[in-house]
Each structure stands twice: as structure tokens, then as C-alpha cells.
């Protein structure tokens, strides 16, 4: 049992190893292979027991049905055998009684013997004749239809046998009489030691009646044989009386026994038989197996039908269930992957932010020194009107100072990106914040002929958030949109409610859009497409602010078609996320 469990575990581990230790999204091929494995495994697990049960049922049912057919046949055979034995015993006792009840002299009188014969045939049918034979084998007297008185039997084997054994029951034979009959002979010895034998002939048509009493079905057969296999009664299918049975004789058994075998025509048969203990006879009954098993074939058909139906049902259910399972698995894997990417992204931003802050700090001091030196240069030049090329030097110093201011802007923004932003929450109307922010841009939009479409949902609830930070977010996104759209372009700003419990603010422009590559890095610090004019910090600061406010930001874009930024804000302020 444990071994089976181990094997099963191994299979399972093997089948599902695809799910562990992998950070990548599972490829569709691997899902297909996983699905194949699960379906295979589940189908095997479900079908094997079904198959086993069907097989066991098949055999049990077959055996039970067989027994049901065999037992009645055996019992019938047993009963008939008893009838035969009774018949023979009665006849033997009668003959024995006659031999011992009358003295030899009385039996030797033919008149007496005939009288006894008449009385005997009245009581027991089947007797054909009766004779008295002395110890020398000479028939002393005879009662019956044939002229046999004085016949000599000393040479015949039955006579010597009866002289030795006391009783003798012969096989069936034709003899002089030309109809099948048998003899029963009994020896008697009186007080003086004189032996004589009483011999009766019995018509074996009585046997046919006993067999007919079995009332077998027409395709079945029953008959009596001797131990050598010679038919003692006429059979329906296996020969006439005194012919040899075409089937080999089964092993000796005095109990009724049943074997499955084939007859000379190659037909499958049940052969029931029983040997007689007191005589050389064997009773046999034959039943063709085909007819007996007709019900069985029907049951077999039903069994097969149910099995096939069951297997089909199992496969259908297994397939559907696996489908569902794989789908769920895939969804959760993808969710996990997405969450992982977000965390990774946030960590990346945060470490880049720290690096940026460090760099900014270190640069600020030398920058300040350069600033003062350049400033001093300019101051000194200002005091010396006679300095050669004075104007040129002043211009140069101004250029240095201008560059320093630009550097300062960059370092200050870097620090702004990295700094821990303290969020001050207040209750605000997001539409109002948006409208305020838009008002900063109205002039530029008008100047460039850009249409800004507002679709603001007036029914939005007020939320707790940071007004200043939100303005910066909206301004960053809108600035980008304005930069992206051509003159007389179009920007759509929408607000609405999202699930679960969030407000959705979307900014759609019909500008130049972004490539997939740009899209992937758009929230990273120092990533810019505005070479020379941008610091690459706007959107990463935006991202940081939205995360701080407990919201989320998503971007989709198609090159040439425009970009859609969607900001999600929680309706209820959450605890600030890790900074």
C-alpha cells in the first residue's frame, strides 16, 4: 500500500513540477502538457477500478450463471440415477427372493415357475422371462415366450460370474431375442450345499421411459452406458443402443458430476454423468452450452455497454474538470506573476531613487563651489571695466551659471523623486482638483489649438487624499499628453467610479503613442524620450505619488494612435504603503 502511495506521489510530483520553482509565466505548451498529464492520470485512476470491477463482474456473473445451469442438471441426473438403481434393485431383489423362497424341486416344475412368473409380471413390469439353471449350467425349467428349456449356459461368462459372485446384472444386449434386453441372475445355495441359479430377462425399453421422465429440453440428451462407453439406451444425438459413444469416457465418479467439454461435432456442451456403484452402468446427460448461456450473452452486452458509457462519462468529466482547474491555475499564476512584477518594479524604483538621492547630494556641494567661483569671476569682471574681452568673459560666466542652474534643477528633482513624501490628507472633490489643474494648461492648449474634452462624473463621492500631490500627478500626465499631441490635437479627461471602491481618472490623447519598449520603462526614473529637455523623472514621481496615496496607475498605448493613462484612487484612504 505504501509502495503504491509512493509511486503515486512520485507521479504527482512529476506531473506538477511545472508549477514550482519557476518565476516565468507558464507557456501555453506547458499548460497543454500539464493538462494532458492530469487528464491521463485522472482517467487511469478512474478507469482502472472500473475496468477491474467490470472484469470481476464478468467472471463472477459467468460463474454464477454457469452454476445455475449446472446444478439443476446435476440434481436431475442424480434423481434419475436413483430411479435406475431402484429399478435394478427391485428386479434383483425379486429374482433373489424367488431363488431363495422356493426349493429347487418346486422351481424345477415348469408349471410352478410359470405361475411364479405370471404373478411376478403382474407386480413388476419389464420381466420378459424367467429360468432355473442348475449348477452345471443346464436350464432346468423356463417360463417365457421363447423355447429355451434345456439350453446349456455353462460355457457362458455370465454363468461363471454368477456362480462366483452370487448376483449378476448384464449389460444390454440383443441376444437371440433381437430386441435390447438384459439379464439378472441370482445364485442360491440350500442347506445341503446344492446350488442353483434363477435367471430373469428384462426388457430395457423401461430405461427409455425412465429417461423420458427427466423431461429434458429438445436440444439436450440423456442416456445410459456401460463403463466401456457402449450405449445402453438409444440417444438423440450420440448413437443408437449398443453403439459406442463418440465422446471419451469421463473419469469415474459415483457422485453426479459435471464437466465442460466438446462433443464429436465440436459443440461446447455440459456433460453430467454418474457411475453406478452396484453395476457397470453410467448415466449421462448432455446440454449444449450455447443455449444455456443465452442469458449470459445478453448480460455481457449490457455490461460492455455500461462500461463504455462509464468510461466516456469519466473522460468527459475529467476533461472538463481539468480544463477548469488549469484555467484557475493559469489565472492565479498570472496574478502571482503580475504581483511579483509590481513588487519588483517598486523595489527597482526605490533603489534607483536612493541611488539618485546619493548622487544628487554628492553633486550639490561641488556644484555650489563652482557656482560661487563662477559668480566671483563675474563679480570681479563687473569691477574691472577695462578688462580685455570683458563682455565675452561675462557671457561665458553667465553660461556657466546657467548650466549650474540646470544642474541644480536636476539634482533637486532627483531629490524630490527620492524623498519621503509626507502625505497630508484632506477631504477633496477630485473633479475640482482636476479642473484646477486643467486651468493651468488652458492657455497653452488654446494657443496650440488642442481640444481638452472633460467628461467628469459629478456624482463622485469626496475622497480623502493629498491635493498638492494629486495636482502634481495630473499636471505631469497632462504635460506629457500635451507634448505628445500635435497642434489641434485632442485630449479626453474622464472621471468615474471603478471597482472595488475606487475612483478612476483617465487621460486619453491622440498623440504619437509609445512603442512597447518605451511602455515597459515609462515609470522608471531617468527614462525619457524628450532628449535634452526632460529629466525622465516626471512619470516616476507620478508613479511614486499614486502608490503613496494607495492608488494605482496604468498605461496603454499604441504607436500612432495615442496613449491612455488611467489613475485609480481609493475611496477611503488606506494606510500609507511602504516608502
Amino acid at each position, binding site marked *: 500500500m505504501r509502495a503504491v502511495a509512493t509511486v503515486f506521489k512520485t507521479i504527482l510530483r512529476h506531473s506538477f513540477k511545472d508549477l514550482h520553482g519557476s518565476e516565468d509565466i507558464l507557456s501555453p505548451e506547458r499548460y497543454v502538457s500539464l493538462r494532458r498529464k492530469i487528464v491521463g492520470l485522472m482517467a487511469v485512476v478512474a478507469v482502472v477500478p472500473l475496468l477491474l470491477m467490470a472484469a470481476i463482474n464478468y467472471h463472477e456473473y459467468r460463474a454464477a450463471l454457469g452454476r445455475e445451469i449446472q446444478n439443476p442438471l446435476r440434481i436431475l441426473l442424480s434423481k434419475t440415477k436413483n430411479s435406475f438403481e431402484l429399478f435394478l434393485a427391485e428386479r434383483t431383489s425379486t429374482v433373489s427372493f424367488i431363488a431363495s423362497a422356493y426349493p429347487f424341486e418346486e422351481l424345477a416344475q415348469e408349471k410352478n415357475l410359470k405361475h411364479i412368473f405370471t404373478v411376478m409380471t403382474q407386480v413388476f413390469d419389464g420381466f420378459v422371462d424367467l429360468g432355473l439353471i442348475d449348477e452345471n449350467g443346464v436350464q432346468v425349467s423356463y417360463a417365457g415366450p421363447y423355447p429355451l428349456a434345456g439350453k446349456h449356459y455353462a460355457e457362458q461368462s455370465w454363468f461363471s460370474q454368477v456362480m462366483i459372485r452370487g448376483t449378476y446384472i448384464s449389460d444390454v444386449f440383443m441376444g437371440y431375442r433381437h430386441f435390447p434386453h438384459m439379464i439378472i441372475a441370482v445364485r442360491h445355495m440350500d442347506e445341503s450345499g446344492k446350488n442353483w441359479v434363477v435367471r430373469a430377462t428384462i426388457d430395457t425399453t423401461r430405461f427409455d421411459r425412465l429417461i423420458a421422465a427427466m423431461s429434458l429440453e429438445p436440444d439436450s440428451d440423456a442416456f445410459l452406458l456401460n463403463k466401456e462407453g457402449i450405449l445402453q439406451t438409444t440417444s438423440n444425438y450420440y448413437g443408437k443402443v449398443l453403439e459406442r459413444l463418440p465422446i471419451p469416457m469421463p473419469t469415474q465418479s459415483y457422485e453426479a458430476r459435471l464437466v465442460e467439454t466438446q462433443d464429436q461435432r465440436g459443440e461446447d456442451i455440459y456433460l453430467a454423468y454418474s457411475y453406478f456403484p452396484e453395476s457397470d452402468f453410467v448415466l449421462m446427460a448432455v446440454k449444449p452450452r450455447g443455449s444455456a448461456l443465452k442469458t449470459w450473452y445478453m448480460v455481457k452486452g449490457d455490461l460492455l455497454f455500461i462500461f463504455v458509457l462509464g468510461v466516456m462519462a469519466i473522460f468527459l468529466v475529467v476533461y472538463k474538470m481539468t480544463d477548469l482547474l488549469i484555467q484557475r491555475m493559469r489565472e492565479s499564476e498570472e496574478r502571482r506573476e503580475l504581483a511579483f512584477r509590481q513588487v519588483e518594479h517598486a523595489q527597482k524604483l526605490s533603489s534607483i531613487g536612493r541611488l539618485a538621492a546619493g548622487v544628487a547630494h554628492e553633486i550639490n556641494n561641488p556644484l555650489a563651489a563652482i557656482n560661487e*567661483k563662477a559668480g566671483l569671476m563675474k563679480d570681479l569682471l563687473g569691477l574691472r571695466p577695462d578688462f580685455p574681452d570683458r563682455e565675452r568673459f561675462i557671457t561665458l560666466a553667465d553660461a556657466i551659471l546657467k548650466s549650474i542652474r540646470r544642474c541644480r534643477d536636476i539634482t533637486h528633482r532627483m531629490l524630490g523623486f527620492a524623498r*519621503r513624501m509626507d502625505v497630508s490628507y484632506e477631504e477633496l472633490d477630485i473633479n475640482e482638483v482636476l479642473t484646477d489643474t486643467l486651468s493651468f494648461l488652458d492657455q497653452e492648449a488654446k494657443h496650440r489649438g488642442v481640444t481638452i474634452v472633460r467628461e467628469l462624473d459629478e456624482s463622485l463621492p469626496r475622497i480623502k487624499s493629498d491635493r498638492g500631490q494629486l495636482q502634481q500627478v495630473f499636471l505631469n500626465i497632462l504635460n506629457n499628453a500635451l507634448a505628445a499631441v500635435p497642434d489641434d490635437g485632442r485630449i479626453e479627461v474622464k472621471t468615474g467610479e471603478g471597482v472595488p471602491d475606487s475612483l478612476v481618472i483617465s487621460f486619453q490623447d491622440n498623440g504619437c503613442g509609445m512603442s512597447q519598449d518605451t511602455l515597459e520603462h515609462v515609470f522608471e526614473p531617468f527614462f525619457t524620450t524628450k532628449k535634452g529637455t526632460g529629466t525622465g523623472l516626471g512619470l516616476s514621481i507620478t508613479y511614486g505619488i499614486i502608490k503613496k496615496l494607495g492608488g494605482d496607475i496604468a498605461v496603454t498605448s499604441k504607436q500612432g494612435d495615442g496613449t491612455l493613462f488611467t489613475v485609480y484612487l481609493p475611496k477611503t484612504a488606506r494606510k500609507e504603503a511602504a516608502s
Partner: protein
Amino acid sequence: MKKIKLLLVDDEENFVNTLAERMKMRDVPSRVVFSGEEALEAVKVEAPDVMVLDLRMPGIDGMDVLRKVRKAHPHVQVIILTGHGTDLDEEEAKKLGAFHYHKKPIDIDELLSTVKKAYREKIEDAMVAATFAQAGEFDEARKIMDEDGK
């Protein structure tokens, strides 16, 4: 106008010396020290009107200097000028009583104007303090008169 007594504190000598020279050109002479320890010493010897203080310095750092100076000499106005400052530093400095918080690099004229504002503030503070002191004397005198009247 009386000359402003200005103290510049920064470990970056290159920077602070040049700054001092330029301030002097703008008629604001100053003393220059290069560490927190020297700054505290200088304040003890002669308290300046305004102090321009860097935050990150070896030894006693700017925040400690600010704390100690504001405690011992509340009339000295301190302007923070730093390249390392964060928003938290700014907040803390304001809490400790810094007059203004500037980030390096800064335009000389902007700094000068802050220094002048700080000086004006200091003068006003001193005047208010003096008024209160006079009021205190008045209270004292009335107390004595009340006692005499009994």
C-alpha cells in the same frame, strides 16, 4: 545701516571662502569657520547677528550647532544652506528655529536677501524683547509702590 555680523559655517573651504569674498563685495563682511566646533567657539566669543550653516559636517554637525546656538543665543538667526538636505531635515531645522532653509547651490543675491531679512528679524526680536524688559521693570516699580502704600 549698521554692518551685519555674519558667520559662515561650512567644511567646504573652497566654497565658503569664495562665498565670503562675494558677500564682502556686496558690503556684507563675514567671519568664516570650517566646522561645528569652531562655529560654537566663535558664537561664544562674539555672537553674530546671522549665521549661515551647513548641515553635514565632520564632527559636530549642523543640526547640533543649530540646536545649541538657538538655545544659548536665541537672538542669533540661523540660515541653513546645505547640499544634502532632505525634506525631513528641512522640517527639523524649522522646528529647531532655523530662519530659513536653502539648498545648494544658491544664487548669491537670493542668499543675500535672506540674510538681510534674517537681520531685520533679529533687530525686531531685540526690540520686542527690550519692550518686554521695560514692561517688566514697570511691573517691578509698581510692586514696590504698592508695598510702600500699605
